[in-house]
């Protein structure tokens, strides 16, 4: 049973996005740590992939061989993935509230050994695209039509390994591989343009021979349309440069704190209340 059949409409996806955002905030505030702002910027992308009909998966059979694979290379944003997987039926939304607690498989970064359905153990930035290449090559050998989607941070793009991977994916013309760069313009210590300005991702990545698109990654419709375009390109790897805002969905609440990056910290219970009210 592949879940691809019941794709949500844009309006339905927007409602689902609110559900994911609320879960992200609740679980990180409950945990007392984590990366809510990094998770929030990627909601529309994760939402479209999991519920917009772009990925084949079966939450009741996570090891189904022909499934598509989702790799969260920016592993610190894993609350968005736990939220989506809970909504997809891999586990309950109560389960994910044990985020980061001793004994919980909902670790601070994805651990595929402890949680079926997680396709890669990440957390050391830079490795996800290479893992995706391995899985895309493996799928090609297995002839099962499986596609691979990798979400990468814009700060993460500073890792040399990503550029090694960009070249390798083109060499093997991996038409079953899609990379989405969550360009939220911030990384840990500040604005990406100040820490390490890599210029135009679109120019650079297309120069590597990839199919590229640049979109408003917090516009649900734009994300769905870009994924539709990418799904029709099968002769080379595809990149979507997803221009987003870190903490999107609760920006006024973050503005109040004076920290628009808000990297690697949960909202206090009071701020979380405000954020949840804002989302509703």
């Amino acid at each position, binding site marked *: 049973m592949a879940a691809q059949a019941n794709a949500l409409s844009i309006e339905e996806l927007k409602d689902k996005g609110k559900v994911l955002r609320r879960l992200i905030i609740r679980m990180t505030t409950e945990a007392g740590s984590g990366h809510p702002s990094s998770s929030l910027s990627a909601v529309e992308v994760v939402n479209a992939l999991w519920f917009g009909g772009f990925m084949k998966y079966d939450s009741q059979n996570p090891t189904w*061989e022909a499934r598509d694979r989702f790799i969260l290379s920016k592993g610190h944003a894993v609350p968005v993935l736990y939220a989506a997987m809970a909504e997809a039926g891999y586990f309950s939304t109560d389960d994910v509230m044990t985020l980061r607690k001793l004994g919980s498989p909902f670790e601070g970064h994805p*651990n*595929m*050994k402890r949680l079926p359905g997680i*396709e*890669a*153990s*990440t*957390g*050391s930035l*830079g*490795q996800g695209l*290479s*893992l*995706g*290449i*391995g*899985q*895309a*090559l*493996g*799928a090609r*050998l*297995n002839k099962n039509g*499986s596609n691979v989607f990798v979400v990468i941070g814009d700060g993460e793009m500073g890792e*040399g*390994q990503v550029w*090694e*991977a960009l*070249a*390798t994916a083109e*060499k*093997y013309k991996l038409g079953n591989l899609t990379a989405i760069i969550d360009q939220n313009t911030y990384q840990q210590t500040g604005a990406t343009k100040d820490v390490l300005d890599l210029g135009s991702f679109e120019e650079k990545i297309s120069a590597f021979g990839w199919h590229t698109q640049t979109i408003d990654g917090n516009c649900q419709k734009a994300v769905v349309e870009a994924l539709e375009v990418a799904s029709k390109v099968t002769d080379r790897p595809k990149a979507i440069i997803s221009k987003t805002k870190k903490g999107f969905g609760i920006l006024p609440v973050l503005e109040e704190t004076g920290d628009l990056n808000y990297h690697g910290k949960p909202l206090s219970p009071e701020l979380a209340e405000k954020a949840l009210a804002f989302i509703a």
Partner: protein
Amino acid sequence: MYLGEISGLKVGQATRDAFGEALKELGDKYPEIVTVDGDVGNSTRTEVFAKAHPERGFNVGIAESNMVSVAGGLASTGHIPVVASFAAFLLCNAYDQIRMSIAFPSMNVKMVGTHAGISIGEDGPSQMGIEDVSLACSLPGVVVMVTADAVSTKKATAAMIEYEGPVYLRLGRPNVAEIYSEDDTFEIGKANTIREGDDVTIIANGLMVAGAVDAATKLAEEGISARVIDMHTVKPIDVDAIQKATRETSAIVVAEEHLAHGGLGSAVAMVVSQATPVPMAYVNVGDCFAESGDPQGLLDKYGLTAAAIIEAVKKVK
């Protein structure tokens, strides 16, 4: 004088050559095997496999980090990737990738580091993996093997493919003495006693097994009976064989073509110190980077010789 010459051992294939041949044959039997190369397949000999099975040989270019993670990804789709490079580049250039893309998720990847040790010779220290065993042993759940000759390397190659889980296999560049015959057995984690003896035990791996056999031959002439153990698996180490040696012989010497810290010597010492402690001595590269030179000259200069083992035996016996 080559290691093994004193005992009349014949010089056979290099361990990397034996590995290349074995892998090609295994490739016929196991369709899951794939190779991932970083532009050194003609040195590591994975090229032999890749030429026979072109659709299963991937060369990602000089990009070791990427190479290792690609292997991890291939393993998660049910393949058995063999990822090979020089030991120095594989372990040192891509250590975080090995840790996160292979060891932590316990991927069924076979990592093969060739050109290990100082016996690569003229290319010099930048190419000499002399810390690889220490690095590999520091990875939870990774099996670490160092083979002594061609026959045992072929068997080790088959054993690591059959084994389910991450493995590191360390191989050398030069031709080395033949220790084993075809009927000898090879089992991961089970040391082989090459020569019986009851005064002292020499535990070695890699090309130092031949050096240990030479030392035992010479010591016998002086009336000292030395047991020689090939500890081809450093992790998990054969605790029984070591404990037996501590009970039955009065001292242990460990010989390896590796830095002093974190290699076979450290692994054996940890077992000995928790069993019946006996005096120990170590023959290894010490705590330094070596230099360019001819392989034999380097082994002599850095004390990886039968004479050095004999001296160590006399110190502790």
